[in-house]
């Protein structure tokens, strides 16, 4: 396999969960998903909820991916929510919950009702726990988000950082139970390389009712190499450095 399409994994029954680690960030999958979705559904709507990447980065990468994100924002085809700037007081110390953010997302989803298939990208969810929100609040937020998208036939993709691979928290366990597919972005055990940036494993989720499109086990993980604005995929041992 020399290609990997994230948009083909989207279903309305549950989210696609993307987990990554510090040594192998999975943001390239989100950008690839957005690019594929925009090209395959020119009239589709997309909501991006970002807690990590700012709009400038999304624009810069999308401009090299073949579509004009600024134009899409003006047209209303893409809605971008920069959580840190729009919700600066979103921290438990200031006695605020995740409810305002959830209500905003529900409002945007409600506006998409009846429209063409829509996509919601949530980047990233683990941060809320790091800054002080309880696991219970974050897991409830995740459940509510998944339920809202499933109720309105909105495709959902969630990115979740794994800070301690050997000590998974309950939130990611709940997300694994709610997901249709789990894309695991893994670093190389031998460290960084100029030829290989990391590996991807694909696991079917608990919610998936149909036969999975494909499965990539960790032992046969698909390797990728990051470029400036896209990633190149190849099987193990078939990279340019080897061939």
């Amino acid at each position, binding site marked *: 396999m020399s290609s990997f399409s994230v948009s083909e994994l989207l279903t309305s029954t549950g989210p696609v969960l993307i987990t990554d680690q510090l040594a192998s960030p999975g943001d390239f999958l989100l950008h690839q998903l957005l690019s594929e979705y925009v090209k395959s559904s020119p009239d589709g709507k997309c909501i991006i909820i970002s807690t990590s990447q700012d709009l400038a980065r999304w624009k810069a990468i999308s401009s090299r991916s073949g579509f004009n994100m600024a134009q899409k924002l003006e047209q209303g085809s893409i809605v971008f929510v920069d959580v840190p700037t729009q919700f600066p007081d979103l921290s438990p*110390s200031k006695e605020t919950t995740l409810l305002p953010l959830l209500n905003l997302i529900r409002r945007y989803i409600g506006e998409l009702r009846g429209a063409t298939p829509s996509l919601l990208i949530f980047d990233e969810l683990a941060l809320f726990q790091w800054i002080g929100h309880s696991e219970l609040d974050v897991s409830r937020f995740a459940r509510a988000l998944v339920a809202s998208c499933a109720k309105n036939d909105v495709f959902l993709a969630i990115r979740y*950082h794994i800070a301690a691979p050997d000590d998974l928290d309950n939130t990611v366990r709940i997300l694994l139970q709610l997901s249709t597919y789990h894309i695991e972005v893994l670093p190389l055990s031998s460290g960084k390389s*100029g030829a290989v940036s990391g590996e991807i494993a694909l696991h079917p989720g608990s919610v998936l009712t149909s036969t999975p499109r494909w499965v990539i086990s960790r032992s046969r993980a698909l390797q990728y190499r990051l470029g400036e*604005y896209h990633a190149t995929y190849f099987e193990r041992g078939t990279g340019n450095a080897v061939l």
Partner: protein
Amino acid sequence: MSTFKRKSSSKSVGLLAATRASPFSSSTILTSSGIASLDDILGGGLPLSCSLLVIAPDTHSSYGELVQKYFVSQGLASGQKVCVIDSNPRQFVSECMWSSNGVLSPSVTTEVEDKEDGNETTKVEIAWRYEHLKPFQTTVSASKFPADDFCRAFDLTYRVPRHFLDQAIQSSQLVLLDASGDWTRLIDLVAESLGTSQDAVPVRICIPLLGSPGWGDPHPKDVLQFVYSLRTLLRRCPHACASVGLPPYMSADRWGGPGWLNKLSWLFDASVTIAGFSVDPALSLRFPSYHGSFNIRALPAPHSLLSASDKTSTLRGIATVPGSSGENNIAFKCTRKRLVFETHHLDAEGGVGERRTGTAEGERAGSNSRGLAGLEVELEGERAMEAAAAAERIRTESLTKRKQVRFRGDLI
């Protein structure tokens, strides 16, 4: 009248003081960390609107603080606005390095500084087939960059003049914020300071020791929340950048729980670890040329998926060899005058002593106190007699040491 207009270079149009556009992405504006080799590792410098985390787990040294002092000195020397947040910011800033002659000049080549440090390299004769090869280099110097005020040359033996500090404080170029009080309001104070600064002047936010004892007893979640707020502030102020250091006791997962350093590094655009060898004396003996190792956790990529360092860094070595199997190990050493990051190579095969033969004790060339070469006179006959006696002594010793083998029947 002609409508021809000369296309101006990207360096001169719209760039802030002491900054340059990234050769990798024109929309990324870089500013120097104060250390040319660290700039190379970061991809040319620290991008504006980005933040750098320096993790220093060595409890017996303060290399992490040294990097922060370079960051502050570079900002002051370049005329940028500097905001220092510390439990004793005035003392920290007063210990920052400065140039040797007080005149702030662009960085000079390392060959001059190496000679001053006593590491003078002598010209050796090499085989003709190797003459066209470049000398083996383990670091980069600022001389590869245009001669501008991007990266200044600082001398660790000099301190920033007091009158310069007073003037900088008076003119609001240098803002000192005390973290010993209610540090949760520090972000608001920094935001106020950024709000009053002109957009044409880059702003450097330096936190030498985040969460140090002077800050009180912060909980890990409080620290993460503070860093999250800092990153939010940088997103709103694209002409600012930040460099944050961690105390040694916080530079380990045991302080903040599983994944503590990863969580913190996720909230920064760049994250590096400077680990001194003093923690393990065996490392100091094994690598006597270096003072510690340098590890990269994350690198800034504000406008692309790939960090500019992967394409442009000479020290990391990924860009120089396309499709290479790995990147170079990097270490650092702190000489009398500067801190430098270098590629970490093993010594000659077998270690330091195998290929190098030291001179005999009696024949060591030395100089007396007047700087004149010493001279020893020996008679040839005496040396010959001594050599013959030594040879005879060795021969007799070898004869006496021969193992005598006898059968049991001979002993009866």
